[in-house]
């Protein structure tokens, strides 16, 4: 580890944080100097986002210190962090859709003249900020709700920049940006550097990390693995630090050719507002991995197949018969199940019991199929099969760990005997032990004859679990890879020509 430069803007020492007993951060050290871009990399669930939330005042750490300019800080909220000169660009949009761009950009720190918000200054500054990141088409008076995703991300960046922060956190800033916007962001980051601002740059895209950063800190499972000077390292080293290979051996065996059955689900030239000309085949017994960056259409694919936002063109066949998947109900009746990405918002019913959560789908759709007692007995068996750990099946699910919650959600779907299972980030935010249990379950389901589609941004998981991988980009299928593909193969397809030209 190189010597930290003397005048550190931001210093983190021994940061610890747990959620519901799951340790997310464990003794993380980090520092940022003026004009430095310090990249933070790591797998999904390594603790990057949590660390950033702590630095920006969103969470309070369980232990450790945050120092700004050498002075220890206790952030009781985002406001304190802002005042200390720390700004953040959130990964999820923190924007008010009914307000204008200018109002969003300046929320919490509106420019004031003689006690009044100076709307003109606000608009002008917003215009300047937008211009400084090369966005000239976006009007400061436009309502954010009417903007596209990429433009909203631009607003999000402008919002953080408007803070005059000395330390700026960028959490996956380019995830939703178009190529030319990424180029502009590069220029912007360099300009910020020249102004002496320290940047914490969180990204999956190693190209960006190498292009921009001076130092890189690698997080893994909540611990800091290493901090290196960018000049002294290369992609391979970094990836090794990030993923470690020790877990890869724990992935269950892949399907053999005997396991593979006929084509169960076929999608031909299907599309909707977010998807274009999707062709896809899913066989019984296989796990089809779906890779791609956030916003590439991965989740949109799952949601289309489950009838949440249905396909508007093309056709879908199930076991050779055409099906119309217009609503979750029709998808469920067709034998499709969907484990959502946003477990808290769409996966669980937090204040209901484990049993009620597990019975939810059966009650809604399969109620007529079997008797009450038999159904409950079956769901209890399923809960046991997936090895849910809880104080009892009448415990409220919100008190369970993420992994156990996910198992309950899984049991809910298994009760319907689905033929096709769609998993969207099934192990996000789940501790290591539970992760491999879920991997085992997914594989067991495939082996029992189900067709599984699994979306994951966790590359080792995607590579370790899939019998076949399709990678999505811009709402299309960018390509298909065999089981023995590498992370680089996936990334190449996922990011398209930017990575190719840079390499």
């Amino acid at each position, binding site marked *: 580890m190189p010597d930290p430069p003397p005048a550190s803007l931001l210093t983190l020492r021994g940061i610890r944080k747990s959620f519901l007993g799951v340790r997310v951060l464990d003794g993380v050290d980090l520092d940022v100097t003026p004009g430095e871009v310090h990249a933070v990399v790591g797998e999904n669930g390594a603790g990057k986002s949590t660390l950033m939330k702590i630095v920006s005042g969103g969470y309070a750490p369980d232990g450790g210190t945050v120092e700004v300019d050498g002075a220890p800080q206790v952030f009781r909220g985002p406001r304190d962090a802002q005042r200390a000169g720390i700004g953040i660009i959130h990964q999820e949009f923190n924007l008010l859709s009914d307000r204008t761009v200018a109002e969003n950009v300046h929320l919490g720190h509106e420019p004031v003249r003689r006690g009044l918000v100076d709307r003109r200054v606000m608009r002008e500054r917003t215009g300047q900020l937008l211009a400084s990141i090369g966005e000239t088409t976006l009007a400061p008076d436009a309502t954010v709700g009417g903007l596209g995703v990429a433009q909203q991300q631009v607003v999000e960046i402008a919002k953080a920049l408007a803070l005059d922060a000395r330390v700026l956190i960028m959490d996956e800033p380019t995830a939703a940006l178009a190529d030319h916007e990424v180029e502009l962001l590069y220029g912007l980051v360099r300009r910020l550097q020249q102004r002496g601002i320290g940047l914490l740059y969180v990204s999956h895209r190693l190209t960006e990390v190498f292009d921009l950063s001076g130092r890189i800190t690698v997080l893994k499972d909540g611990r800091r693995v290493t901090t290196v000077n960018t000049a002294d390292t290369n992609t391979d080293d970094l990836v090794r630090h990030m993923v470690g290979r020790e877990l890869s051996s724990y992935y269950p065996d892949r399907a053999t050719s005997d396991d593979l059955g006929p084509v169960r689900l076929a999608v031909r030239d299907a599309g909707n507002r977010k998807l274009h000309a999707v062709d896809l085949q899913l066989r019984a017994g296989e796990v089809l991995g779906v890779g791609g960056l956030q916003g590439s259409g991965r989740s949109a694919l799952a949601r289309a197949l489950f009838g*949440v936002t249905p396909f508007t063109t093309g056709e879908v066949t199930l076991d050779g018969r055409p099906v119309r998947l217009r609503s979750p109900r029709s998808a469920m009746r067709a034998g499709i199940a969907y484990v959502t990405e946003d477990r808290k918002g769409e996966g669980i*019913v937090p204040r209901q019991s484990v049993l*009620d959560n597990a019975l*939810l*789908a059966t009650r809604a759709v399969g109620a007529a199929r079997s008797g009450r007692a038999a159904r409950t007995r079956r769901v209890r068996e399923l809960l046991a099969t997936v090895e849910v*750990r809880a104080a*009892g099946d*009448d415990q409220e699910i919100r008190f369970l760990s993420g992994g156990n919650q996910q198992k309950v959600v899984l049991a809910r779907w298994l009760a319907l005997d689905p033929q096709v299972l769609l998993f969207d980030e099934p192990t996000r935010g789940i501790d290591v032990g539970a992760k491999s249990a879920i991997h085992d379950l997914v594989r067991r389901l495939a082996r029992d004859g189900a067709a599984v589609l699994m979306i994951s941004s966790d590359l080792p998981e995607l590579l370790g679990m899939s019998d076949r991988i399709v990678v999505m980009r811009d709402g299309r299928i960018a390509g298909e890879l065999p089981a023995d593909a590498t992370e680089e193969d996936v990334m190449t397809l996922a990011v398209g020509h930017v990575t190719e030209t840079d390499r």
Partner: protein
Amino acid sequence: MQIVQRRPLPLRRVRLRPGGVLPILAILAVLLVLVGIRQPSFLDPPSLMSFLGRSAPVILLAAGQYFVIVSGEFDLSVGSLVTAQVVVAARLIDSDPARTWPVVLLLLAFGALVGLVNGLITTRLRVPSFITTLGMFLILVGAVYLWSDGAPKGGLSEEFRRFGRRAIEDVPLLGRVPYALLVLVVVAVLAVALMRSDFGRTLVAVGDNPRTAQLSGVRVWRTRTVAFILSGLAAAVAAILLGGYSGVSFQAGAGLEFGAITAVVLGGVALGGGRGSVVGAMLGALTLELLFALMNFYGVSGALRSTVQGAIILLAVAVSATRSSSR
């Protein structure tokens, strides 16, 4: 292999968790003790039975309101619906005993219809239920006054009034059992059974997290609409009992919607949905009724009663709110 551990703790029945019935039981017990000290004869079976009988309409309304609130909505129209039902019943029956049963059926259908309209406007037209049912409240009150020219007409038959007013006398042990109490017991059993059924569990899930429910195949709009229909039906039954108990009046349902919502919240049900039991809601209504009786027994000045009521509601809700947020 670790399976779901089942530890049948003794506490499981009286759920200590937020939304449980223990706090309301505690309040109820305190009030009962206070009544017992002041008016021991109140606790004699016959008088207790009468009390339960006369409280039945309010308890029924609370149960109806519970379905709507637990699914994440409001029903402000129940009070006006009760008034409308009583006035309609009087005019249609017009003191003719033969019309009693047809009118009872008509009232139930009318209640269900109002609930259906409330539900469809709320779920299909996406009008917040506060506004929908507020509008329905104005419409019902206006329409019923309009229809009856400002003064209730006709009269209720003795058969109709029997449900709310009379009792089976000379019952061993209990002394007397009001018909209203029988109706209440039947409806309460139905309500509890309903909440244990698939529909009931789904209803709570819809109130807790409609997105999850929808993605699990629940037709959220239909479930909520049914909740409104149940509320309308409960209002119809309450109107039949209340009309029976006290006769025709434009005051029959006045303010009952706020009473019912207060009772439900007092019973540990969260506004916004997803938490609380129908038993808690009904106990909440019973507690409010007991509080009013208590104030009669203690001779609390009539004008000060709303202050007492307001203070108790704020206290109870504040305590449960801080208790649940500290978890």
